[in-house]
């Protein structure tokens, strides 16, 4: 009787372990649309931070959900994903917002020259600050 109880106990623990492992393995990606932004700023501020001290900006912004506001300078689609460029005071650098699949469907409403708010995940700085999985904020 006692051994039976122990075996059942071990089995339950085992099943729980498998369940937790399965859950961890299939952990979902961050859903930008449902999350609120970690940091809210303008296209100018984030670019200035990256161009003055990239290492510090990396620790501050990378993998965070950033809400950015700026003036649209270019709208295009590549590989079925929309890309919106936000203008900054620097002529050669901007904030590149790569839209999510959902947001790409609404890209036709965006006009060059308008002020736009977007939130997305910051992945770093090349020539421009790059945000991915961007969603529109109304």
């Amino acid at each position, binding site marked *: 009787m006692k051994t039976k109880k122990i075996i059942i106990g071990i089995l339950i623990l085992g099943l729980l372990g498998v369940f937790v492992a399965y859950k961890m393995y299939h*952990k979902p990606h961050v859903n930008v649309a449902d999350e609120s932004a970690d940091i809210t700023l303008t296209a100018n501020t984030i670019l200035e931070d990256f161009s003055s001290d990239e290492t510090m900006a*990396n620790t501050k912004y990378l993998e965070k959900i950033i809400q950015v506001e700026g003036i649209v300078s270019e709208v295009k689609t590549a590989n079925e994903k929309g890309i919106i460029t936000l203008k900054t005071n620097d*002529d*050669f650098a901007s904030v*590149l917002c790569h839209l999510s699949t959902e947001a790409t469907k609404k890209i036709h409403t965006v006009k060059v020259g308008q002020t736009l708010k977007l939130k997305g995940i910051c*992945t770093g700085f090349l020539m421009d600050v790059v945000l991915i999985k961007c969603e529109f904020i109304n």
Partner: protein
Amino acid sequence: MKIIYTVLACLFFVAISNSQERFLTKNGTISFFSTSPMENIEAKNNQVLSIVDAANGQMAISILMKSFMFEKALMQEHFNENYVESDRYPKATFKGDLLNFDAIGDSKTKTQVKGNLTIHGKTKEITIEATTLKTADSILMTGEFFVELADFGIEIPAVVKNNIAKKIKVNFNFNHKPYKK
């Protein structure tokens, strides 16, 4: 006085020709595949910066490691935290030359690209074969090559040795456009 004018004129033309001869893309694609008996892993990066100097065939590529998107969030986490250590090495770069750049024209040509690839803080010289196509307003480059993890000091723990291939297949696709501004 004459000399000054000549120098100024030369500088002016150099400036013009330079601005017209640089081709670039900010949304190049790099994807990689690891095939192993246990599982297949695939990741894609659509934010690659690649620049080709049409005057001499030099090229430079910059890749943000955190821009690689995986099917599973856990894979992405492991990739960034344990394998390529993206916080310490946020970028991978390639600097090199398109060999035989003058031979590239408006039909698809196989071209060798030779240069230094830096991943995870380690640099290695590689030669890649790319299919290239050059027109007046674009330079298209596609191809694939293999990266050996050991060459870049990327260690895979024994527990997951069977889940991750030692040689990773990398695909790239860059559509460079003339850089204006």
